[in-house]
């Protein structure tokens, strides 16, 4: 039952949509200019037009009435934004900013224009909020540490620095020498294979190997503490070699 009802409702909506679309599309037809009158025998009188805005000055958001009156005109056009209109009429407008409306009457006897200026007072912007002093353009020290000091990766059951990690460690050493105030804890980690206790020892060796490498590069040993988490802090939890490799690492944390 419910399905049928929804189906009928859908059909009804579709019908309404088609109906509305077609009835809307008729509107522009109504605005088509009337067919021109037969050519006059006597010279036609020149057209005239007046356009007034009331009030001429408003606060933003308030309406303005445009009123116009044309004679001897075949067409009347008001710009911007209004277009072709009847010879006499008025229209409510709501301009966002000051604007000059132009009405143009065109007839067999020539053209006439009038203008009406609407001044829209825009409220002053709110006073600027007192903002904290803008941050220095350079990133925080923690961000720099993250960017320039990368985790060091190790081979299975090994704690020596492999050639692929040397450039990383040299960059880290350069960072520590530039930022002599930074103190860190180096954490050594192991993958889940092997015994938990032995992995504590292995992680400890990895952390200390990294520390010793940095000391050789000229970083003061007193700035670096070490800790081993063994296999307790994996960054990856799948049982794949890819994952194990990510977990065989030494990382850095800034000491407060």
């Amino acid at each position, binding site marked *: 039952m419910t399905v049928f009802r929804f189906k009928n409702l859908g059909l009804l909506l579709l019908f309404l949509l088609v109906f509305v679309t077609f009835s809307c599309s008729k509107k522009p037809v109504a605005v088509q200019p009337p067919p021109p009158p037969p050519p006059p025998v006597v010279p036609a009188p020149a057209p005239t037009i007046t356009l007034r805005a009331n009030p001429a000055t408003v606060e933003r958001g308030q309406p303005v009435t445009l009123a116009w009156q044309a004679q001897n005109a075949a067409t009347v056009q008001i710009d911007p934004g209004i277009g072709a209109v009847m010879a006499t009429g008025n229209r409510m407008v709501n301009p966002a900013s000051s604007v000059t409306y132009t009405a143009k009457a065109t007839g067999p006897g020539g053209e006439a224009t009038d203008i009406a200026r609407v001044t829209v007072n825009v409220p002053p912007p709110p006073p600027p909020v007192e903002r904290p002093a803008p941050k220095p353009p350079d990133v925080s020290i923690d961000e720099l540490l993250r960017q320039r000091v990368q985790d060091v990766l190790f081979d299975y*059951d090994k704690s020596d620095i492999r050639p692929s990690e040397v450039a990383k460690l040299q960059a880290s050493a350069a960072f520590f020498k530039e930022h002599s105030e930074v103190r860190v*804890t180096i954490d*050594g980690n192991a993958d889940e294979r*092997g*015994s*938990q*206790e*032995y992995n*504590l*020892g*292995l*992680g*400890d*060796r990895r*952390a*200390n*190997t990294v*520390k*010793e490498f940095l000391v050789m590069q000229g970083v003061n040993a007193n700035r670096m*503490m*070490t*800790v*081993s*988490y*063994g296999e*307790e802090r994996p960054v990856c939890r799948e049982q794949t070699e890819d994952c194990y490799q990510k977990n065989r690492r030494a990382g850095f*944390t800034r000491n407060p």
Partner: protein
Amino acid sequence: MMKKILALAIVVAAVTFSRGLYARVQTPQIQTGTRSGVIGVKIAVPEFQPLGADAKSLQLTELFNKVLWDDLDYSGVLTLVSRSFYPLGKFSGPGDIKPEDWTAPAIDAQFIAFGNSRVGDGRITVEARLWDLKRPDNREAIGKRLGSTDTEEGARLIAHQFADLIIELIGGGIKGVSLTKIAYISDRTGAKELYMMDYDGNDSHALTNEKSIVLTPSWSPDGEKIAFTSFKLNQANIEILSRIDRKPYNFVRQGGTTTTPVWSPDGSKIAYATSRDGSDTEIYVADWNGRNAKRLTVSKGVDISPFWNPRTGREIAFVSDRSGTAQIYIMDAEGTNVRRIIMDGGTAVNPAWSPDGQRIAFAWQKSRTSYFDIYVHDLASGKNDQLTQSAGDNERPTWSPDGRHLAFESTRNGSSHIYSMLADGTKVRQLTQSGKNQGPAWSGYLGQ
């Protein structure tokens, strides 16, 4: 002719001698070796009868019966005759037992444990008897009234007490372990915390609430304190806690990564591993408050997981990768006379010395792709007996104080759980049920 007689005499003498030897070896200790087929003394244990008919009497008596049965069944010294062979009837008091029914070939029990329970006035009282069916002159081996509060804990307690009396009597004077505890690590609340449970897995509860990482518990010999590794301040340090009131004891911070504490058999010292003075962990020994630290090993590489010979206190087993892979070594307590004991390759870790000092249980991964299994190394013969058969990693054996059981951790059912088994690999039972559970440490006998 003479030669034949001589040969026969030698054979007879050899048989007699070896039988005598066999009898001596057989005494109280269970024979180790995988599934060596030792059959314990046969005992019948008909259900104890509740004297009241109220729900509480029935419930607590049923619990008592279950705990008593399990304690005896897992003791390693008894064979329980199945109840389906028992004569019909209720066996509440001496008048209910006809010995000839229980010694008939179908049952062939040597002992029968029976009795009744009374629940009232906030107490459960059990009248418990053990009869030696094959000694008509002196039948009653134990006749005892045991009482406690009328709670599940109370019913368990008196069942454990009666079981231990039976095990001690029949098992050659070696105390049963029904009232011992197992400390272990579990992450069932999210963080790895220290837990303690009864030896059969009951009454498990957390001792720490550090919300960090806690590892490698070890009992003080008096069963009062537990030392463990804590990462509370993002450094690996040793902490000590009273198991009774959870009071912390100070252990001087060593610096570096400091882990795997283990108590000396006399309770005065703790051996542990630390990288306080160098680039890798070495074995140290200090007073149990962490003072007077002395370094025992000097080797490049990992030295970790020390374990004192509990009988002599004169030697320490430990793990080192000085040979390239993790292996088990023994050194004298001063750090001298280092020798490797497992020579067959792979990775050998987690040494745990048996209470009699004659064997070392350990976890062995024979190749990089195989699982860890529990083995027992006999120090006199150098022989290694395999106790578990893979189906996941089996690691970190810990001996019960009677030397008849081992607890260990295993991933055989997916998540890591604590199991116990007899020292010959039989009678395996799972002790934990939720979370990831590791690093069991079996207590010594606790002061009652």
